[in-house]
């Protein structure tokens, strides 16, 4: 059996595949690198698959915390792993927009799923999941409710600061000026969409465009990005698990190579 682990900045994911690349176990936990998240998430995936650790023939780790996870056979970047995972479930994908907790990237794939090119956000948290987390906190709502809140907005309030910290104070002042919380929430989604599309514009966007990562769960954000990009965006059933899936697929491939 083949294990793929994706250790992000704010969540950990694990996928287990059998010889036929069929998913037999999967888990996700909202704690990332520097915690016991990785071990726990592997335990859960094993439990689901009804396996013991010894049953795993190969492990590949990816994600921000990949360097500190020493019990894998190999570590591969999240860029290659996301590409692999997405190509496996959506072979027509040519562009992957992945928005995680602390970075955002756009990956261009060729027909065989190879990475042709990729770009990542700058060092700061603008245009990443962290931005939405901060917005949810200021708007005093749960992260998972932010999308619904924005759905009820009519006119997105413009948030001009790209810096997450400044955007936070900008939002506070908008609220104190009497803006509706729903419109501010919508504005926050538009703002992240603009940042992401700015990133997309640096490469040649070829459909089909697929979105992955934690932010893909936020329907309003996906909608805003699609509007801004003027292209439909598809989403795999399990947008957060693509990195771990790709890692597991690599684990399977390496075993065959040997």
């Amino acid at each position: 059996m083949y294990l793929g682990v994706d250790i992000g900045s704010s969540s950990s994911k694990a996928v287990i595949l059998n010889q036929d690349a069929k998913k037999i176990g999967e888990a996700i936990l909202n704690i990332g690198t520097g915690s016991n998240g990785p071990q726990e998430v592997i335990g859960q995936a094993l439990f689901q698959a009804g396996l013991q650790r010894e049953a795993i023939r190969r492990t590949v780790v990816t994600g921000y915390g990949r360097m500190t996870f020493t019990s894998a056979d190999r570590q591969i970047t999240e860029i290659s792993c996301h590409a692999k995972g997405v190509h496996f479930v959506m072979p027509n994908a040519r562009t992957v927009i992945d928005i995680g907790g602390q970075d955002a990237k756009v990956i261009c794939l060729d027909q065989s799923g190879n990475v042709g090119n990729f770009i990542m956000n700058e060092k700061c948290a603008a245009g990443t999941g962290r931005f939405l987390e901060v917005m949810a906190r200021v708007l005093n709502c749960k992260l998972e409710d932010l999308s619904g809140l924005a759905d009820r907005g009519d006119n997105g309030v413009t948030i001009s600061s790209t810096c997450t910290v400044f955007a936070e104070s900008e939002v506070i002042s908008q609220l104190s000026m009497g803006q509706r919380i729903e419109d501010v929430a919508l504005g926050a989604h538009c703002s992240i969409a603009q940042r992401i599309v700015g990133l997309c514009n640096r490469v040649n966007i070829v459909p089909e465009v697929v979105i992955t990562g934690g932010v893909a769960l936020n329907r309003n954000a996906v909608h805003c990005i699609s509007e801004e990009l003027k292209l439909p965006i598809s989403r795999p059933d399990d947008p957060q698990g693509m990195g771990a899936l790709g890692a597991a697929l690599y684990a399977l491939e390496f075993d065959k190579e040997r």
Partner: protein
Amino acid sequence: MEEVKTSKQMLGELLDKHYSDALEAKKNGQLVAWATSISPQELLTTMGIHTVYPENHAAAIGARKCAPEFISHSKGNGYSVDICSYARVNLAYMELLHSEAGDIPKPDLIFCCNNICNTVIKWYENIAKELNIPMIVFDLPFNHEYEVSKQDVRYIKGQFLEAIQKLEEITGRKFDYDKFGEVMKISSETSVWWKKAAMKAMTKPSPLNGFDLFNYMATIVCMRGTTEGMDLFKLWYEQLCEKEAKGLGPWKPGEEEKYRVMWDGIACWPYLGPTYKTLRKYGINMVTSTYPDSWYIVYEQNDLDGMARAYSSNYVNRNLDFGVDNITKLVKDYQLDGIVYHSNRSCKLMDFRQFEVQRRVEANTGVPSVIFDGDQTDPSAFSLAQFETRIQALVEMMEKRKQMAGEK
């Protein structure tokens, strides 16, 4: 037995001497100039004016991890974080006048050439104003057309002649044109040896570890007009030839040069070691950059037109088409597998066209590349983990291309 010096030892000694000579000269009441890195030092060298280079000094401060103290001092003086960090370090040094990384004497004269950027104009102007010292400016217009135009050559040459006059006034001495010819000759020759050494990296595997370019750069900036500088590059060249003849690569015997990349932009001085080690860990040798050409300032002896053209032909002063052609050629000449672009928070001019250069070079060559964020001296604008992710992703792309090429 006579000890044979390695070029590295000589490099260290020459740099030490360069700085101590300047300090000594100042003590003895001789004139000291502060000059930009690609300025017509020939004029100062001819006049016997000791010259130090604030950009180099700031880089040294950065490499010794001493920059934060200076950066925060400048911040206190009101200089924005958006200004080039070399400028912020140097403007603070002008007041603090001491760093563990080594000292340079206070200037009596400012020598500023804007063929590298326009930030230097305001930066050096501030120094001249604050210290109330003369400033000689060379305005080398950006080349919007592919080649340096005739009228620009005339304009620049006129400025050289005017600068000579000003130097005569400042020193009260006559300009020695015979010596000038000599210095021109040495400067061009030194440039030639610098480039010849750097070009040794075209061999596969490269006998040159490309990060050495960052080290030797200090001397091509500071000592281009001196015979010592020329001897250093000759020696470096010879030693590289020896390595090449033995088929040796850039690192320890047996350590394979798996990938050859170009580095675009300035080094991240505060992280020179970590960035180097990260690349080496993956078997990546940085075989070239735009540096070898930046100090390839070559012209015929006594040819002021040629000298004007050479100074204006610096890579960053040439247009986008030239930039793209230049890198496209490097990809072929050095048999590159990839390109690493440093998106340097300090250097707006270099970053400005980077995305477009990257896009076009990729279209021309098909070679994969990555951009990472950083800064030449400000340590806060760089993250090693993010750097490594990008480098590793580049490796994965380069590996895949090699595989695919092998399958064909």
